[in-house]
């Protein structure tokens, strides 16, 4: 009799312990990933969560920038290996669930740090205050980057984690085509916008492609800035239109050209037949006309 009483007591204790554990965890897992399968090369909030969670259990020690880069990839594979999951570097349903079960993720806190431009980590067991290195700027530059409209929305809501969910977090990092830098992209976008903002999209990709063709050609300077600022090479450089602020369309055109699209058929020159001043340019073998420009070898 006594024995069975003890047995029942034990089971009860055990059960309560389990329920405690379960209930203790459930609030943390309410915010866990969207249903997408996250793979290398992806960007966005799910990647931020993935990196934070992997860091929580010490698999990832890189920056939490929302770019599924190589470091994130190896961290995820190590996690899969340690947990006897299929090691494929894909964050699918089982992997995400296993990860969410083992880690905590404070969405509001993480995104607040990113918006403030703070450097931070999310290691488990370390007090949050110790994981943040505040940025030196008066207000985080990241917060400035968020549109003002959304800032106003945030004000009316209660301050804290829940309110932050609505505010878009500014981008921390991005994928850049191999061999180029963000500054190359900006510079090219300026040149493309200054040279051809009246052109259709395809005409802008074409101008960007000519810049890249020149960089790769032995008869021209071998850097983006060298090609663009070669005196007399582009009219937008000569008359200062290159310093206008480019729009999104020009930036997209540059990205397409950097990713390998070349509508010009490997052209090295182009000119506007209505305004061309140099007679020499007419002697170049012509490839095709896109918009107002004739593209030549």
């Amino acid at each position, binding site marked *: 009799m006594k024995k069975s009483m003890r047995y029942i007591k034990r089971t009860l204790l055990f059960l309560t312990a389990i329920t405690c554990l379960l209930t203790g965890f459930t609030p943390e897992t309410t915010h866990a990933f969207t249903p997408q399968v996250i793979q290398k090369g992806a960007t966005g909030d799910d990647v931020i969560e993935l990196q934070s969670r992997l860091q929580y259990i010490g698999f990832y020690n890189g920056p939490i920038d929302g770019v599924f880069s190589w470091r994130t990839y190896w961290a995820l594979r190590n996690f899969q290996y340690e947990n006897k999951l299929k090691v494929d570097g894909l964050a699918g349903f089982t992997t995400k669930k296993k990860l969410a079960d083992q880690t905590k993720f404070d969405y509001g806190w993480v995104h607040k740090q990113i918006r403030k431009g703070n450097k931070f980590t999310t290691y488990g067991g370390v007090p949050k205050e110790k994981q943040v290195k505040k940025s030196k700027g008066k207000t985080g530059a990241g917060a400035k980057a968020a549109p003002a409209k959304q800032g106003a929305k945030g004000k009316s809501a209660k301050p804290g984690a829940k309110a932050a969910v609505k505010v878009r977090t500014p981008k921390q990092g991005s994928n850049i085509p*191999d061999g180029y830098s963000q500054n190359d992209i900006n510079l090219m976008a300026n040149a493309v916008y200054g040279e051809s903002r009246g052109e259709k*999209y395809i005409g802008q990709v074409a101008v960007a492609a000519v810049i890249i063709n020149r960089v790769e050609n*032995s*008869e021209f300077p071998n850097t983006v800035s060298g090609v663009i600022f070669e005196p007399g090479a582009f009219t937008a450089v000569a008359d200062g239109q290159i310093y206008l602020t480019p729009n999104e369309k020009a930036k997209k055109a540059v990205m397409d050209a950097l990713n*390998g699209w*070349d509508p010009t*058929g490997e052209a090295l020159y182009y000119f506007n037949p209505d305004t061309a001043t140099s007679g020499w340019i007419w002697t170049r073998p012509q490839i*095709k*006309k896109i918009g107002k420009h004739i593209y030549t070898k």
Partner: protein
Amino acid sequence: MIRNALIALLVIAVAGTGYWGYKQQQEKNAIRIQSENNYQRAFHDLNFNLDALHDKIGETLAMNSKRQISPTLAQVWRLTSEAHNNVGQLPLGLLPFNKTEDFLTKMGDFSYRVSLRDLEKKPLTDKEYKTLKDLYANSTGIQDELRRTEAVASKKDIRWTDVELALSKKDQPQDNTIIDGFKTVDKASQGYAETDFGPEVASMHNAKKRNLTKLEGRYITKEEAKKQAIKFFQLKKNVKITVKETGKGSQYRAYSLTMYNPDTKATTYMDITKKGGYPLWVLQDRKVGAQKISLNKAQKEAVSFLNMHMKSKMEVVSANQYDNIAVFNFVSTKQGVRIYPDMISIKVALDNGDIMGYQGTDFLTSHYDRKIPAAKITEKQARAKLNPKFKVMEKHMAIIKNDIKQEVYCYEFLGVLGDETYIIYISAQNGDEEQVKKLREGQPDYASM
């Protein structure tokens, strides 16, 4: 009284305007002098570079010890690169001056390749010695002409800014010394294009001269091109298509198509080869909304698109998300070997998973039924060639183009060293380390930090 006051006011106004004008003039002059100074520096530096270049090449000819030749050729390489840089800063954009730049680049490539070689094991060949001799003679010509131009320009006090102004205004400049001098130099360089820089340099620069001769099939008409496009995209009848032929100067004889789809408000551009009717590239212009599908899902769309259109087996080698756009690179595979020169890129919109772009030029110009050679080196031997600190995570077999643009059969090792990820290619033929590439992490957005 009033008259006197008016006169006084007018005098002040006139004096003020005069002073303002004078200030403006001064500012304008200052800016002009500044750009003149930049041009002068580039021009005189260029002359200095070519003097030094000429001397260094001369020295290599006189040298006998191999230990000396390598560093001297390394200096030639550095000087050609500096000279090239200085040419790029002169206002010659409206002058044909490209042959000189081309000559400098090739001379640089040649000296770089020879200077890297172990000359004890592989000494300069007679042919290379002759190339050096030719280069010496050629650089003498260029040096003379540039020096002459420099001397005359300085004697006649010719300004580069005047030349630039005259060139851009289309009217002939009063004095053609500089322009004529540079035209002569360029003509001379063109003559030197015949110089034999050896097979390595030649293959480096011929890589861009690709063509479509490997394609099968007959030449198609404009109407057939239209039909091909409709089939390629499974278009409906309401799509408006215009077709243009590419000009005589084009590398690839093709039709350029523009298609407007009123349903999706998207304009699609496409080049399709005349021979065989293969699509070279496709690019769609439309507004892309917020991301709704994942990169993973987009990849599946890209794969099924390729399966529909390609006979060759393709494998994805990179996937990148740019906000609401995804770009995937595929290479063809044969017997499990990745053939990197056969590359195809596909762009997918992440709002609805539509294919927005296709780039098949690399594939069309390089693909043929390759024979996969037998590896002369085992995987174990290849691994032994790696840096011992490098931790291999994945291994593939691959055909890549090395730095002189020749195809080599390699072991491809993907792995980490410290926090960084690298891809290392070890030749399966002789165990040479053909290529080491550091792979990119996400690039931080410095503007928002």
